[in-house]
């Protein structure tokens, strides 16, 4: 078990290096002189002088070759120094740590919304396959999967904020602020999760042990609850694990719509501001989050599926 975890963490390191290397490369392939951009961000267009730009170039080490710059960055990062925002001058980790809670809350809320909708819907659709309810659910799920989540967000704003005035559009602070973003993000995920839950459940319902359970004279409800559910949860955990990626991707867009002060919005703003240090910091964070959450999901299998537990122990 420990070897498995160690291997995954080693992978994390490679991923971080790979991804940040790509980002770094892109930053330097981008049009515009980084030093100039930083100077503009700091001092504004009008007050800029040649000396300022040069000073910044040297100070930030932008005169060295790209590869050296990357190694330098890597060296700093390993020592826990993530640099400072090129826009505000504040340390990157401060800014990020400040914004993590907001994203975490949104993601959690969205996940809850998504699971509350998807799992019952998927299970009921599977159990009552071919019924009108099944078709309705599947149609809804298909629409949900095809709909851009930012469009859904805007429609929800249109309906609930603008027309009905129930919820505020922007901002952060109370439950009321969180509902629209969480529903936007959660509904999109629910669509995918519903489909996957349903097919997983259908798969289980086809198995021999379900027929065997029925042959014992167990009530159908009992068969579903005791025999089918646990088996279908294992793939559902995979599904939810796979959804973490979508969840993170979704926060980027949803936070931008609702001006939710989280890491997603931070990343988008940093990209447009060409705040390189911040971009690297955010990318690093997303990599770590993604790999660790997936690792946790994989570990949870061990507790859910006795067959895997057995393999690991033997």
């Amino acid at each position: 078990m420990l070897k498995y975890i160690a291997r995954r963490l080693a992978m994390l390191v490679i991923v971080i290096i790979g991804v940040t290397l790509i980002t770094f490369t892109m930053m330097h392939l981008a049009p515009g002189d980084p030093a100039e951009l930083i100077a503009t961000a700091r001092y504004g267009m009008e007050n800029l002088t040649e000396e300022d730009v040069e000073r910044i170039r040297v100070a930030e080490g932008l005169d060295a070759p790209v590869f050296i710059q990357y190694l330098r960055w890597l060296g700093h990062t390993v020592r826990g120094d993530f640099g400072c925002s090129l826009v505000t001058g504040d340390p990157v980790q401060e800014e990020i740590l400040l914004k993590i809670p907001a994203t975490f809350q949104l993601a959690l809320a969205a996940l809850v919304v998504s699971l509350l909708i998807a799992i019952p819907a998927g299970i009921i659709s599977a159990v009552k396959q071919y019924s009108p309810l099944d078709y309705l659910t599947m149609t809804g799920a298909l629409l949900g999967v095809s709909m851009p989540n930012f469009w859904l967000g805007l429609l929800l704003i249109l309906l609930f904020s603008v027309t009905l005035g129930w919820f505020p559009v922007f901002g952060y602070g109370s439950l009321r602020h969180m509902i629209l973003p969480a529903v936007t993000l959660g509904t999109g995920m629910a669509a995918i999760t519903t489909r996957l839950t349903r097919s997983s459940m259908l798969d289980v319902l086809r198995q021999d042990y379900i027929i065997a359970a029925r042959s014992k004279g167990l009530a159908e409800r009992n068969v579903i609850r005791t025999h089918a559910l646990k088996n279908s949860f294992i793939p559902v955990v995979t599904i939810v694990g796979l959804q973490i990626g979508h969840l993170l991707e979704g926060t980027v867009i949803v936070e931008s719509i609702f001006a939710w002060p989280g890491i997603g919005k931070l990343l988008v703003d940093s990209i447009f501001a060409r705040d390189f240090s911040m971009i690297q910091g955010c990318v690093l964070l997303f990599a770590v989050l993604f790999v660790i959450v997936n690792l946790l999901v994989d570990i949870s299998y061990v507790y859910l599926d006795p067959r895997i537990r057995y393999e690991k122990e033997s």
Partner: protein
Amino acid sequence: MASAAVAVERNLTFIQLKKNKLAIIGLLIISLLVIVAVFAPVLAPHHPYEQDLDRVMMAPCSEYPFGTDDFGRCILSRIIFGTRISLAIGLIVTAISAVAGIILGMLAGFYGGVIDEVIMRIVDIFLAFPGLILALVIAGLLGPGMFNVLFALALVGWMGYARVVRGAVLAEKEKSFVETAMSLGASDLYIMCRHLLPNVIAPVIVMATLGIGHTILAAAGLSFLGLGAQPPIPVWGSMLNDGKQYLQTAPYMTIFPGLAIMITVLSFNFLGDGLRDIFDPRLKEKSIE
């Protein structure tokens, strides 16, 4: 008993029809979209860039069936021309990703060993990071322009194809016809193209069809955030971005482009789902009484 029998029989044919029906509907809509894209100049009532600052943000009317945007441009016309861009991105990105994925997957599966290890590690690395975010970073840093979005999306889109093709190649490789071909002296490339590729193409087609829809959504998302083609080029995603500020006064700026995206992606999903059912009948869902 007889009525139950009749009910079952009727139910089953209905279901079979329905499944194929969705795929056909999808195909029809896609064809319609292609026609719209190709004949855009003829179909659009106005020029997509044409501004009329006197008629800014007008509600839908006979002259402007979808209304006008904040520059007085006809929303319907912009959506019609936007079809070109959306379909183009979807097709080009998917084509590039699929081809790259097929090649890499084929090489990995066929040669195995070090090549397989290296390629699969690269796949794992790319898969270990949320694709859209990486695409966002890449496209965002490279700057505005459709090409950057294309590049970014293609870069994060190939892994699925590589994995699927590799898996299929590994399965097919074991079969004797490969050995036969090899013993007859066929070149590797020949075997890969003539023998393996046709057997491996089915899941790729399904993936690609669904992939086009997925790409269009992703591209719309990136455009919404401000990347990709810049105004006045009509891109559905950025049209939504424009409409964002005027939700109260001109909701149609938001409703129609979004609807266009959804219908387009839906049609590819219909088709993709239908194709998947056809190519893998073992996935047919039979339920138990």
